[in-house]
C-alpha cells in the first residue's frame, strides 16, 4: 500500500538524492564533462569554426529529432527518417530540375517539394499505423527500405548537384552571423517546446502515449493524434533533407544513412521514454548536442570512425539502462 500513500513532507534533513539528481541533470552534466574533456585534449575543439561546425551538423538531425520526440512520446517510433531525408532531398532536386527552375528561385521549388513529400509520406505511414494497426516499428522499417529504394529509382542512383548559390545559402549561409540551419533548428526546437508545454495538442500527445485507452475514454481522437505526429516528423525530415542537400551542394541517394539512429538516440538519451508519455524536447536538444559533441570530439582525437559507432551505441544502451534503473528505484 505504500506506493499509494503520499510521502509526508519530512522536515528532517534529507540525504542528497544522487540518482534523482543524475536522472534530471545527468545528460547535461555528461555533455558538459565531454566538452571540458575535449577542450583540454585539443585546443581546436572550442574554436569558433569547430563549434559552428558541430552545431550545424547537429541542427540537421536535431530538426528531425524534435518531431521524433513527439512520435516517441506517443509510444511510437519512426525508423524511416534517414531514408526519407534522402528521398525528400532528391525529390526536391528532381522537381526543380524538371521545372527548369535552377535559377534564383529554384530553392523555393525544392524546399516546397521536399516538405510536401515528407508530409505526405508521414501521413501515409501514420495511416498505416492507425488505420491498419501495423506496429510503427514495422511500418517504418518497411518505409526505411522503401524510401531508400525510391530515392535510387528517382535519379538512377546518381547524385544531383550544381545548385544555385541561393539554394546553397540554406545550408552554408548565415543570418546575423549564425548559420541558417542553426537558426532553423533553434526556431523549431522552441516551437516544439511551446507545443509540448503550453498547448492542448501537446497535452493530448502525452495523454495518448501515457494511456491510449484512457485517452480515448476522455474523448480524444487517438488515431488522428497518432497520425499527426508522423506527419510532423515527415515534414521535418523533408525540411532536413532540403537543408542537407543545400549544405552538401548535392542531393545524394546515400544521404542520411544512419540518421535514424542519431535521431532516435538523441531523443532517448534526452530521457524520453520509449514506452511513451514521459520526456520532452528539452532533453532531446541536449541529447542531440551530446551526440554531436561526441562524434566531433572523437574525430578531433583521431579515434577511428569504427570506434565512434561502438561508443555511440554503448552510450545509448547505458542511457536507457540508467533510466530504467532510476525508475525502478522510485
Amino acid at each position: 500500500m505504500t506506493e499509494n500513500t503520499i510521502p509526508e513532507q519530512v522536515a528532517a534533513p534529507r540525504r542528497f538524492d544522487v540518482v534523482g539528481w543524475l536522472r534530471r541533470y545527468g545528460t547535461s552534466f555528461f555533455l558538459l564533462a565531454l566538452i571540458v574533456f575535449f577542450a583540454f585534449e585539443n585546443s581546436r575543439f572550442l574554436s569558433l569554426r569547430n563549434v559552428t561546425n558541430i552545431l550545424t551538423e547537429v541542427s540537421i538531425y536535431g530538426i528531425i529529432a524534435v518531431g521524433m520526440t513527439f512520435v516517441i512520446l506517443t509510444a511510437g517510433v519512426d525508423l524511416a527518417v534517414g531514408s526519407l531525408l534522402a528521398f525528400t532531398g532528391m525529390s526536391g532536386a528532381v522537381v526543380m530540375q524538371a521545372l527548369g527552375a535552377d535559377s534564383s528561385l529554384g530553392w523555393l521549388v525544392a524546399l516546397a517539394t521536399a516538405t510536401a513529400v515528407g508530409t505526405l509520406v508521414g501521413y501515409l505511414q501514420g495511416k498505416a499505423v492507425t488505420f491498419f494497426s501495423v506496429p510503427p516499428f514495422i511500418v517504418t522499417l518497411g518505409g526505411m527500405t522503401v524510401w531508400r529504394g525510391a530515392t535510387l529509382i528517382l535519379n538512377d542512383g546518381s547524385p544531383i548537384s550544381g545548385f544555385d548559390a541561393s539554394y546553397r545559402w540554406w545550408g552554408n549561409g548565415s543570418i546575423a552571423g549564425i548559420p541558417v540551419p542553426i537558426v532553423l533548428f533553434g526556431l523549431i526546437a522552441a516551437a516544439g517546446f511551446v507545443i509540448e508545454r503550453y498547448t492542448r495538442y501537446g497535452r493530448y500527445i502525452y495523454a495518448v502515449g501515457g494511456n491510449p485507452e484512457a485517452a480515448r475514454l476522455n474523448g480524444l481522437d487517438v488515431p488522428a493524434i497518432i497520425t499527426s505526429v508522423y506527419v510532423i516528423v515527415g515534414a521535418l525530415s523533408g525540411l532536413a533533407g532540403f537543408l542537407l542537400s543545400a549544405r552538401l551542394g548535392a542531393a545524394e541517394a546515400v544521404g542520411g544513412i544512419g540518421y535514424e539512429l542519431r535521431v532516435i538516440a538523441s531523443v532517448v538519451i534526452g530521457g524520453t521514454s520509449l514506452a511513451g508519455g514521459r520526456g520532452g524536447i528539452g532533453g532531446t536538444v541536449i541529447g542531440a548536442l551530446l551526440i554531436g559533441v561526441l562524434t566531433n570530439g572523437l574525430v578531433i582525437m583521431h579515434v577511428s570512425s569504427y570506434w565512434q559507432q561502438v561508443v555511440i551505441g554503448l552510450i545509448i544502451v547505458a542511457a536507457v539502462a540508467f533510466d530504467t534503473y532510476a525508475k525502478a528505484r522510485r
Partner: protein
Amino acid sequence: MPNLLDVRDVCKQFPGVKALDGVELQVRKGEVHALLGENGAGKSTLLKILSGALRADRGEAKLDGLMLKPADTPRERQRAGLATIYQEFNLLPFMSIAENLYLGREPERRGFIDWAAMHENSRALLASLGLIVDPRREVLHLSVAHQQMVEIGRAVAQNAKLIVMDEPTAALGQREVEILHGVIEELKTRGVSFIYVTHRLDEVKRVCDSFTVLRDGRYVARGEVRSVETHDLVRLMVGRDVEVAKRARTARSSEAVLAVNGVSRARESSGRHAMALNDLSIDVKAGEILGFAGLVGAGRTELARIIFGADRCDRGVLYLHGTELSLLRSPKEAIRAGIALVPEDRKQQGCFLEQSISQNMTLPSLKRIARWGIFVSEKKERQLVEKYRSALRIKMPSSAVAVGTLSGGNQQKVLLARCMALQPKVLIVDEPTRGIDIGAKVEVHQLLFEMARSGMALIIISSEMPEILALSDRIVVFREGCISGILDGQDATEGKLMALMAISTAADLKRSAAR
C-alpha cells in the same frame, strides 16, 4: 495448535514514510486468516515482505517452525511453501494452463518435457478444484475467475502450506465469489492455510476464521471472526464508527434526461465486453441515481459503455432530453452531448498514472480553458483544479505530483473531478468505490449524492449490493445480457436483488459455462 506462520516485529521504512512499524501476524494451520486495514495501512507491504518481493528492515518470520531468511527471493519463499496470489495475476497469457501450472517444474522424462504427464496432472489438479478445462488452452482465453483458479492450482501444485490472496474477489461476480469460497473451504480441509486480504467485510464473516487488523503501519488487533461484529472490525480499521448511509429521497423531475431504447448486440467472438445484449431499455431523470446491479459480465458495464460510445451495438436508440440521437459513435461525441463516464478500472482506463494531477483532471476540459482553442491558460487551469480540489476534498501535496502517488480514494476523486469539470447532464460511474478504503468510500458516496442533488442524472454500477441499495433511487438488474427487473430503491432488499441477479435454471448455468 502451533502457529503455521509467526511474524514478529516487522519494520519497513520507505523514503519519507514508515510503512510498517513493529507489525505481527500469526496464522494457524488450516485456517483462513483475514488481514484487514484501510488503504495505506501497510497490508500490501507486509504481503510483499512475506512473498520475498521486499526485504524488511527488521523483524522475523517463522513458517512451520523454520525461520525464513530475510534475503529470500520469491522463488525460495515458494519452495518453503508460501504462495502469493496478487490482484494482478502472474500468469503467462500466451502459454497453456498446464505450462503455467508447472512453470519451472515441468515433469520430465529422459531430460525432455513429459507433455502427457503434465496435461494429465493438470487436468486432475484442476478437477479437484472443480474446474473442468482443457489444460492445453491458452490462459489468455480464460475468464478472470478461471485464471484465479489456475493461480490457486499452481500454489497447490507447489505444495503450498500457506496461500496469500490479495483482494481475491475484487474482480469477481457474486457467483464466482461463492465458487472461490468453496475451493478455499476444500483446501482448508486438506490443511492449507490462507491469508485473505479484502475490503469486503461480509466476506470476512463468511469465509475467515480469525483476523489481524493493521492501521497506519501498526498492528492494532487480532481475534476470532465469530466473536466479533462487522462494525467492530470497521472501528478497528478506521479508528471510528462509519456506516453506509442510505440516501434521503429528494424531489426529482419526471422528465427523463437520458433514455435508451432497445439496445441489442450479437455476441462478439472475443474481447472483454463481448457479451450478447438483448433489447435493453432504461431511462434516467434529472437528480436521480439509477443503480445498475448484476453479476460481472451480465451486461451492466456493457450497456454503460454503449451509452458512452465506447463500444458498438447492432440496434438501439438514444434520447437526450427527448431528442432522438443515433447511438453515439465515440466517447468524444458522448462528452460533447453531455455524458461523462468514470470507468471501472481506475488504473487501466482512467488515470494517466505518471502524469500530474492537474493534467489528469483537466484533460477533457482543455478546450474550455485554452486561449483561441490552442494555448492552455495556466491560470484558468489552476483555478479549475483548485475549485474541484476543495469541492471534493482531495488530499494532495500539490497539483503537480503524479496521480500514481495518490491513494486509491484520492485517485477516484480526481477522476470524479475530471467528469464534474465537464458539467455533464448524465454521469456514469462504474464501480465508484472499488479498492478504496472505507473512509474515502463514505466521502465518495456523499459526493455522488451532492451531484444528484444539483440536478445531474447519475448511473451507478456496483458489484457491492449494500452500495447499490444505499445509493440508488431505482435499481436496474441485469442477468445474462437482459434486464431481469427494475426495482424501486426504497423497497429493494439484498434478497430481491439476488433473486433477480442469480443464474438459477439449468439452461442459464449451461450458457454461463459455455462462455
